[in-house]
């Protein structure tokens, strides 16, 4: 019997020369990716984990048991019910955005498991697919127990099956990243950019926030997922190395494109959680501080290691760090019934903290919150007045990222229009337009929400849009956590008594 050290290389590195078919028929460029190179250029592909299937199963079993133990100890409904209301809504955001996105990662990894260009790559991608399946099952399992208590948690499973505007944006991202992608672009975009560049936002930043918020179940879940991510993220580096060697311009393009696309989505997912949906005394840092320490510095070092340049729009990202997620949060608050979780207005103490952390543009954001507050003062608090403190006309969306046209600053929105092949498009920013123009055939026929309404596919009436197209109900659509009943706002009903 072979020893582990003898057996493993044989099992992991099992390639051969084809005699009945051509190599480019086994690995067509359209699905394996470009640059198409003979296997001789990929044969030195290697990663550092070198795991066998048996070892993988043993490790994963132990990790699952640890998650279940924490669930049994501190993850019961009565534990979750003790969490602060804003954090609970952060939980709902991630409960919806995470599980089925991870499932699309199963598909992407399986494509790598079949069409990756070296056997060690394919072996690792097989484990990656199993990882992502685990990352689908665990949150679905943990959040399911909460559905009977709070129907907004039903969106953990429902979200990606709806045409909710944020689901449309998230699907547009993950459809391209994982479901419809060739193996090379998938592994560079997912493993290198997302999992190496942005995963710390989710799995270090969120774990830290969960700990501060006493949500030990969520902390354990994301930490457990992170141990898998750290392993299969290794696929991206050796793939990128080979692409850099043969087509550095293309490698740079993939990094530029996917850093921007990731930035758009994750600045919302994590920015809102850190700066708005975590209690002030439980925020260990601002979103910007976390990005600078854990994402920006590390990503730039990694780019240097590969000989890659900073993306051409880098200064725009640095500027958006101060404002983009604030623009999105204020917009989403005023259209909260279009989403499946609840919101809070930042209190004076929180606004003071935000001003300290984001001095560059906060004056303009503060004016927005003062105006929203004034509306609550005028109409008075209470669930019956929710829609009197709500947007009335349709907000607008980017034809690339499908997110609201909320880029730039309150003084100058950076949205830009384009006529392409006789059709009009609008983009939230220059990088989104640039991505569109690199591969217009890929994006041109996707209709954003406004064009769906104008074409009659989606109802123009807001109530029908919410219930028939977004599949929300009065029970599940987003509200102000306190129904405008804030001490500091002078609207609190019981404070006058």
């Amino acid at each position, binding site marked *: 019997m072979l020893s582990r050290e003898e057996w493993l290389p044989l099992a992991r590195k099992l390639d051969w020369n084809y005699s009945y078919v051509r190599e480019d028929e086994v690995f067509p460029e359209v699905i394996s990716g470009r640059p198409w190179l003979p296997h001789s250029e990929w044969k030195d592909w290697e990663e550092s984990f070198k795991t066998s299937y048996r070892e993988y199963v043993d490790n994963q079993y132990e990790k699952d048991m640890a998650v279940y133990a924490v669930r049994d100890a501190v993850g019961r409904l009565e534990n979750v019910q003790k969490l602060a209301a804003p954090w609970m809504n952060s939980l709902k955001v991630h409960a919806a955005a995470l599980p089925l996105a991870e499932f699309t990662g199963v598909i992407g990894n399986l494509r790598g498991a079949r069409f990756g260009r070296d056997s060690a790559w394919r072996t690792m991608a097989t484990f990656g697919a199993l990882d992502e399946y685990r990352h689908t099952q665990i949150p679905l399992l943990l959040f399911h127990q909460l559905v009977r208590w709070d129907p907004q948690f039903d969106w953990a499973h429902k979200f990606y099956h709806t045409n909710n505007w944020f689901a449309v944006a998230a699907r547009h991202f993950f459809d391209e990243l994982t479901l419809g992608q060739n193996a090379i672009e998938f592994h560079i975009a997912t493993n290198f950019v997302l999992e190496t560049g942005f995963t710390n936002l989710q799995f270090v930043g969120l774990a830290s926030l969960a700990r501060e918020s006493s949500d030990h179940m969520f902390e354990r879940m994301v930490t457990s997922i992170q141990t898998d991510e750290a392993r299969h993220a290794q696929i991206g580096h050796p793939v990128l190395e080979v692409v850099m060697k043969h087509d550095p311009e293309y490698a740079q393009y993939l990094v530029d494109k996917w850093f921007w696309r990731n930035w758009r989505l994750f600045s919302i997912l994590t920015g809102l959680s850190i700066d708005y949906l975590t209690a002030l005394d439980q925020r260990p840092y601002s979103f910007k501080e976390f990005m600078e320490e854990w994402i920006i510095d590390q990503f730039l070092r990694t780019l240097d290691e590969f000989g890659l340049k900073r993306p051409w729009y880098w200064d725009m990202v640095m500027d958006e760090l101060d404002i983009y997620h604030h623009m999105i949060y204020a917009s989403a608050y005023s259209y909260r019934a279009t989403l499946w979780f609840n919101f809070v207005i930042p209190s004076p103490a929180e606004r003071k903290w935000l001003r300290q952390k984001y001095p560059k543009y906060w004056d303009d954001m503060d004016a927005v919150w003062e*105006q929203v507050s004034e509306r609550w003062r005028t109409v008075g608090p209470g669930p019956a007045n929710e829609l009197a403190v709500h947007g009335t006309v349709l*907000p*607008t969306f980017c034809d690339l990222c499908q997110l609201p046209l909320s880029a730039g600053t*309150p003084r100058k*929105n950076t*949205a830009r229009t384009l006529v392409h092949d006789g059709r009009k498009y*609008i983009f939230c920013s220059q990088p989104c337009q640039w991505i569109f123009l690199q591969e217009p055939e890929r994006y041109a026929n996707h209709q954003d929400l*406004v064009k769906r309404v104008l074409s009659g596919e989606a109802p123009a009436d807001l109530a029908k849009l919410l219930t028939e197209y977004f599949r929300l109900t009065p029970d599940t659509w987003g509200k102000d956590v306190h129904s405008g009943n804030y001490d500091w706002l002078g609207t609190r009903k019981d404070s006058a008594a």
Partner: protein
Amino acid sequence: MAIPLYGFMEGDTVGLLILAEDGDTVQTLARKLQDAASLRVADRTEVRVVYNDKALDPVLTISQSGLKALDRFDVIWG
């Protein structure tokens, strides 16, 4: 006929879909956007409508202004 336009109000956090009528004046268009953004942006009496980097005469109708479906316009202060 209603003309859908992308409206951006200075001071606001999101662009809004504004339905203008052919016969609406530019001044009416500005009022429609101000009303639609009023939850987030305080009303101002002095505003201008900007289209293709030029301020539009407030008495022009939409059809005279050159604005077409899915164009961007801005309402700025002052």
